């Protein structure tokens, strides 16, 4: 690759794009216009749109106590709102006689007032029919609460009678009988009372139904119905308090308060109800304070805890919070869109305009072409993202300075983050833009036309948006595990760096985030280059696609081993089945033997069956696909020895990396425990070692590895098969572990050309893990000779787990290196499955005989 050509292509593409009005508009003009435009729109909206007042109707307002008054003038007393202006957001209509205004017939506001009066009258007319059912409901509820009170009295009496009966039982048989009769009578009475309460409660349902029906017909957001004589009842209790004649058993103390009706499913109603509820609470508090003073009690009695919050957020922190959420999200979304349109134009557009072949026949290599195009796309992606941020930031700042105390300032002060944070924005934008650019370029290269290219935007954007939303969710913060995830890592790191509390602590994540992001970008770039090197992608012609035709093609043009795509499809199928079965497996409350049986069925149905079926249907040689041949004894020996040296290494590696992974969800941990808990060892071995060894090997080292290896890229096939094997395990810890083991298993399968050693290895490895877990769980079962003397150099029991000491690990590592070297060394390679038969000249099997075979990725 020479940089001269890359630079030439880059410069040309940039010039080409900057001559394209659409691209320029999308990338430069749109962001510069969009945010100020949005800002103007927002100002207009806030000026024009003030919150519509919500209608609150109060029926029976004359029964409200006058001191302290809930209502004042036309509305609820502003004193009961935290923000007095909130009172204006509620339009209150009462059934109080309207105060006669000075009858100036010439008053220009008169007609308006008439209108308002007419509206109020209409609302009241709508509300009044609800009064009767509300009263009815109140009466029933009063009955219920009275009955409940007597029920609890009866309960006390019953307890007393029982005690008396027990006391009498020792001396007097006659008295006992009397007491027993008493208890029986009370019990009967209670049963009857409970029955009545149940009946009343049932009566409530149709009434509430009716109220809701009537309420839905009105335009009222909240209806308050004050019961008759409410004022007198409050005054009555107040009077008693003053005279100190109130006692707990007083029947008259129970009275119904105002009923408020609202529909919480309706947002308008909910907002109004929340405000009314708060106002009533404050009002009630005032009444309580009044009562306390009548009773000569300090007002603090009502606040026994009196918690006192302090909010230490400073103004600039609040603003930083706004940016720390907005910037990463905007950066990611704009980096995608900024990359996408140029990428489609540069790849699919070039195909469409017929200049692709012109470019392909120039001496620049395909890598140079792709890198040149990639850098162009990345440049546009970064400029789009930065221009958007800049434009949005400046607009926000300007708006904030203009709006003063408006609604925007409530979001927090919108001062720009400092230079240090902005530098980080740029640093993290580079890998993000690189990843998106390479992905978009690969997709766009695959597309036949710009139109087809546009179709790929939606899935890409959906995935990106999903990850962005995930990063924005409160409570998600950067962890070692998240830091190595694509997109999520940079986004969370940026959020942390822009957040006010972010000091130097998140900086330790900068290295893993940047390193992995660059790694992902390179992978994506490699994919793009690979796409570009494929003739079937570059010269894709519009083919009529018919499902039937395609299936016939699959069944007719079979190869001895599955194709790359078929292997990928098999994996996707297994994952989908796993996903579908996830619920069954984890919702199941079965334990022990049933659990184990379920796991075996899962292995058979979800993992082995799809691979076997596909192998039989889509290949001409299931024997070769599943590597069904006798391995050499040497290979068997290596496969048998490796688990014993790898088990301690793998276990300790996983233990030492436990900080890195998110903790296991409690459910899964419990399931694992349940499954292994008290079943017999043989069954556990069957479920955890035998079944996976056979089923997973058939699928992953059989069908999938054979398919990935059909393009003869050994290391790619190994890496992909072990990655898919890892991903299939779902739980992050196992994904990591299984991926590493997948490499070893893949090596064994490829070198021996047989599935048998891989199955053997897999079985032994899993069996060792099971045994290891067992020994630990039973604790004392560790034989004495292992607990003392030289054995303690090698193993140690800690927290019910057998831990391997470093001498064990060193020995195991040495042995593993020796064994793996034998495996990797090409000289010892057991002959692989025989070379594919040479096809009749030029007839079929184009891929295999080509010098550098193309490969499908993804």
């Amino acid at each position, binding site marked *: 690759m020479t940089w001269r*050509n890359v630079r*030439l*292509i880059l410069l*040309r593409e940039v*010039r*080409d794009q900057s*001559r*394209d009005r659409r691209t320029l508009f999308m990338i430069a003009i749109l962001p510069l216009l969009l945010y100020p435009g949005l800002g103007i729109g927002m100002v207009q909206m806030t000026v024009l749109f003030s919150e519509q007042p919500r209608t609150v109707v109060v029926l029976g307002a004359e029964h409200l106590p006058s001191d302290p008054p809930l209502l004042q003038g036309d509305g609820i007393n502003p004193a009961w709102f935290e923000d007095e202006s909130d009172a204006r957001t509620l339009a209150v209509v009462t059934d109080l006689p309207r105060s006669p205004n000075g009858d100036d017939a010439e008053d220009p506001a008169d007609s308006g007032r008439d209108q308002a009066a007419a509206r109020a009258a209409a609302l009241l007319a709508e509300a009044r029919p609800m009064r009767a059912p509300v009263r009815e409901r109140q009466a029933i509820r009063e009955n219920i609460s009275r009955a409940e009170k007597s029920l609890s009295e009866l309960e006390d009496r019953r307890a007393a009678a029982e005690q008396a009966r027990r006391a009498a039982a020792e001396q007097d048989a006659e008295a006992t009988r009397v007491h027993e009769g008493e208890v029986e009578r009370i019990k009967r009475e209670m049963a009857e009372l409970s029955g009545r309460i149940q009946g009343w409660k049932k009566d409530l349902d149709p009434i509430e139904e009716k109220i809701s029906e009537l309420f839905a017909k009105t335009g009222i957001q909240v209806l308050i119905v004050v019961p008759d004589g409410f004022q007198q009842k409050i005054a009555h209790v107040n009077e008693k308090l003053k005279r100190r004649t109130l006692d707990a058993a007083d029947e008259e103390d129970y009275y119904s308060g105002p009923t408020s009706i609202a529909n919480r499913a309706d947002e308008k109603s909910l907002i109004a109800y929340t405000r009314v509820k708060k106002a009533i609470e404050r009002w009630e508090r005032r009444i309580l304070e009044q009562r306390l003073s009548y009773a000569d009690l300090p007002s603090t009695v009502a606040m026994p805890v009196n918690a006192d919050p302090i909010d230490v957020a400073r103004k600039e922190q609040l603003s930083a919070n706004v940016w720390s959420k907005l910037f990463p999200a905007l950066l990611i979304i704009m980096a995608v869109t900024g990359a996408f349109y140029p990428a489609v134009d540069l790849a699919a557009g070039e195909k469409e*305009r*017929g*200049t692709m*072949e*012109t470019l*392909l*026949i*120039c*001496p*620049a*290599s395909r890598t140079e072409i792709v890198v040149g195009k990639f850098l162009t796309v990345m440049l546009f992606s970064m400029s789009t993202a930065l221009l958007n941020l800049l434009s949005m930031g400046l607009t926000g700042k300007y708006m904030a300075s203009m709006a003063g105390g408006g609604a925007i300032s409530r979001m927090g002060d919108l001062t720009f983050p400092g230079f240090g944070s902005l530098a980080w924005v740029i640093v993290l934008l580079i890998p993000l833009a690189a990843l998106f650019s390479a992905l978009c370029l690969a997709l766009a290269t695959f597309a036949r036309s710009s139109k087809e290219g546009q179709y790929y935007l939606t899935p890409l954007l959906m995935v990106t948006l999903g990850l962005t939303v995930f990063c924005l969710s409160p409570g998600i913060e950067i962890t070692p595990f998240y830091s190595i995830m694509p997109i999520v890592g940079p986004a969370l790191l940026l959020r942390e760096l822009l957040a006010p509390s972010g000091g130097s602590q998140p900086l330790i994540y900068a290295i893993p985030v940047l390193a992995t992001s660059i790694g992902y970008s390179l992978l994506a770039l490699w994919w793009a280059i690979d796409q570009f090197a494929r*003739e*079937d992608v*570059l*010269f894709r012609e519009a*083919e009529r*696609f018919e499902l039937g*035709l*395609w299936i016939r*093609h699959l069944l*007719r*043009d079979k190869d001895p081993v599955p194709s790359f795509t078929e292997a990928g499809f098999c994996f996707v199928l297994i994952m989908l089945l796993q996903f579908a079965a996830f619920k069954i497996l984890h919702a199941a409350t079965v334990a022990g033997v049933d659990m184990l049986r379920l796991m075996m069925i899962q292995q058979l149905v979800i993992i082995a069956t799809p691979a076997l079926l596909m192998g039989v249907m889509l290949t001409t040689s299931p024997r070769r696909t599943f590597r069904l041949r006798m391995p050499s004894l040497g290979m068997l020996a290596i496969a048998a020895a490796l688990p014993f040296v790898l088990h301690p290494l793998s276990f300790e590696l996983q233990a030492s990396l436990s900080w890195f992974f998110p903790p296991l969800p409690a459910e899964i941990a419990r399931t694992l425990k349940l499954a292994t808990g008290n079943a017999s060892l043989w069954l556990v071995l069957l479920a955890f070692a035998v079944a996976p060894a056979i089923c997973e090997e058939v699928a992953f080292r059989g069908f999938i590895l054979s398919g990935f290896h059909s393009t003869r890229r050994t290391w790619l096939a190994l890496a992909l098969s072990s990655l898919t094997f890892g991903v299939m395990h779902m739980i992050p810890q196992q994904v990591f572990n299984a991926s590493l083991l997948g490499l070893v298993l893949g090596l064994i399968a490829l070198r021996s050309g047989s599935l048998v050693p891989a199955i053997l290895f897999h079985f032994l490895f899993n069996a060792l893990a099971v045994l290891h877990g067992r020994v630990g769980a039973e604790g004392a079962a560790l034989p004495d000779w292992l607990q003392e003397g030289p054995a303690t150099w090698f193993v140690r029991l800690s927290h019910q787990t057998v831990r391997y000491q470093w001498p064990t690990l060193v020995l195991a590592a040495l042995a593993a290196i020796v064994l793996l070297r034998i495996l990797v060394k090409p000289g010892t390679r057991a002959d692989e499955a025989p070379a594919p038969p040479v096809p009749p*000249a*030029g*007839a*079929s*099997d*184009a*891929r295999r*005989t*080509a*010098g*550098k075979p193309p490969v499908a990725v993804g």
Partner: protein
Amino acid sequence: MIHVRNLAKSFPDLRRGSVAALHPVTFEVRPGEIYGLLGPNGAGKTTCLRILSTVLKPTGGAATVAGYDVRTQPAEVRARIGFMSGNTGIYDRMTAAEMVEYFGRLYGLDEDRLRQRVDEIFEMLQMNEIRDLLGSKMSTGMKQKVSIARTIVHDPPVLIFDEPTSGLDVLVARAVQQAIAALRDQGKCIIFSTHIMREVEKLCDRVGIIHRGRILAEGALPELEDRYGEPDMEELFFELISRHDRELAEQTA
């Protein structure tokens, strides 16, 4: 300069399985001669020329161009050929001069040499008046001139033309033919595909008649006429093709 030996290419096809676009073909082209690949549409001409230009990889056989293997030394090959076909369009948002200069630079010409070549070619093809015209504003004839200029900017010893005159009016087609003839006179090795008999008769020193991915007959025009006793090129062409189709039909029957 061009040696093609048993070159074969097959594509996977959804409908028919693997399809052989090119059965093993063998021919060679010497410097200072124009070799014509004559065949109907879909005969495998484009596939063959795309393999020679290293855009496609052969699935069998070998080909060397200017002494370099198309499979193992594609960059070397590309640096020594000029390739033009109906599919090699020009960029809409570049002027004629920019387009030619861009490719000149990609071919590694230094700036002095580039300026000299561009002036020379623009003079020769009489395209000075479209020098600063954007591709999107050009007529088909102008575009074709730019394509030719692009093809020869680096003065390659081997030139590959895939139906260069298809879709052109008589005047432009004639200009293209004259340009190709002039290039032959400079001693270039030229391979040229077409389905137009007149062009073959006028330009080609030798022809290969290609049909269904096979070369049915090959040689200088008089030689072919002698061999098949058919003085009319068009008749000869039809005769060969229909005979081949008959043979195929008999084989499958």
